[in-house]
């Protein structure tokens, strides 16, 4: 029995701290790592340690990167006059997967959340404004989530960036592709109607 063995408990606990992993899954993963050939555990721990020590945040955009500046900020073929603002690195990754966006990013590492005490100073907002002040940016696309906090952040950025005479746009919200209107919630439908475009 491996239960109550301190080293195993530690491994289970470590897995449990990952998002989306409960107690049962953590136990299953731990047992798997321990019963598979030792090489798996070595590869896994080396990969985690190696990636963690190499990855840092880009000095320009705040995205996670191995090179500094990141490959996107360093890419001259991209349009550096368009900056897409996202809450987290995962947001930038999602847009990159789409494969059509050619501008650059700015990662805020959170959203304004007065209730949790998160104001502009707690986010990478000054860095964004500094980029805009330095010149060369003609549009800032705000792609924060459509939560109350994401919207508050968008309104705040819009005020700050427009004061620097640079256009601010907000990504459209609406009915998901392949989605039926009858399954779309009222608020999304309302936003979809407000954000309609001419055909």
């Amino acid at each position, binding site marked *: 029995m491996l239960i109550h063995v301190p080293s195993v408990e530690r491994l289970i606990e470590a897995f449990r701290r990952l998002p989306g992993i409960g107690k049962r899954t953590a136990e299953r993963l731990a047992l798997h790592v321990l019963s598979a050939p030792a090489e798996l555990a070595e590869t896994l721990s080396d990969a985690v340690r190696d990636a963690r020590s190499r990855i840092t945040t880009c000095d320009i955009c705040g995205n996670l990167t191995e090179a500094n500046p990141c490959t996107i900020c360093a890419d001259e073929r991209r349009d550096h006059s368009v900056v897409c603002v996202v809450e987290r690195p995962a947001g930038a990754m999602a847009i990159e997967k789409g494969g059509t966006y050619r501008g650059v990013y700015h990662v805020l590492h959170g959203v304004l959340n007065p209730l949790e005490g998160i104001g502009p100073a707690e986010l990478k907002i000054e860095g964004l404004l500094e980029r805009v002040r330095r010149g060369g940016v003609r549009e800032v696309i705000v792609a924060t989530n459509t939560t109350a906090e994401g919207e508050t952040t968008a309104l*705040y950025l819009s005020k700050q960036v427009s004061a620097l005479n640079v256009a601010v746009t907000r990504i459209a919200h609406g009915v998901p592709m392949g989605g039926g209107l009858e399954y779309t919630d009222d608020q999304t439908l309302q936003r979809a109607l407000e954000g309609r475009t001419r055909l």
Partner: protein
Amino acid sequence: MPQERTEAIVLRGVDFSETSRVVTFLSPHRGRMACLAAGAKRAKAGMAASLDTFNRVELVYYWKDSRTMQKLGEVALIDGYPGIKNDLAKAVYGALPLELAYKIAHENEPSPPLYATMVTGLESFAKWSAGPDVHATWQGLQLLSAAGFAPALDHCARCGRKVDTPTGFAFDGGATCSNCPTDRRLTPTGFAALLALSGSREFCPPLEQTGDIFELFCGFAARQLDSDLRSVRVIRQIYGQ
């Protein structure tokens, strides 16, 4: 596990896992209630939009006395208060009443008056066109008063003597007379504003002059609840109040 249904206001939401959120509601009969909304972060669930902060919703949940986090069943939106969310200043100042309600309400303690005060306040704020600091102060005073923390205004909070025109304000009790020590000077304008805001239950009175009543209220609320108010720190950061 009995299924219950209630109306509620979404006070706060935090991510629990990749797909779930823990949402804290203010409800009339269960007080402050934390629920696990499994799968709420998946776009298809349609639940995420209803669980946004500030929302007034109707929800179905599964109650069990033994646990601190209840299980959420269904949620339907009653009002999303776009009038608050689409206005930067309202969205920022509006966090103060939410934080106060979160700190005033107790788990599983019925408080229909506190809930009614919260709803009246949100409805009024969505339509309000004057200074958001005044409105947030009014909402805050009403919430504190519904929970028994109203500031003394007709007598000195320190010596108890009756005063018509107090000259100071003590954060631990309210208005003070000229003989007692105080935390802040209270101008006649500030006192008049405080009286008007405390006295009006149904709507925020449209005041022309209020002095530094917002700061005064924040000091009072922080002392009454014995708590550092995070939303006030952010309001100060953004609006320099």
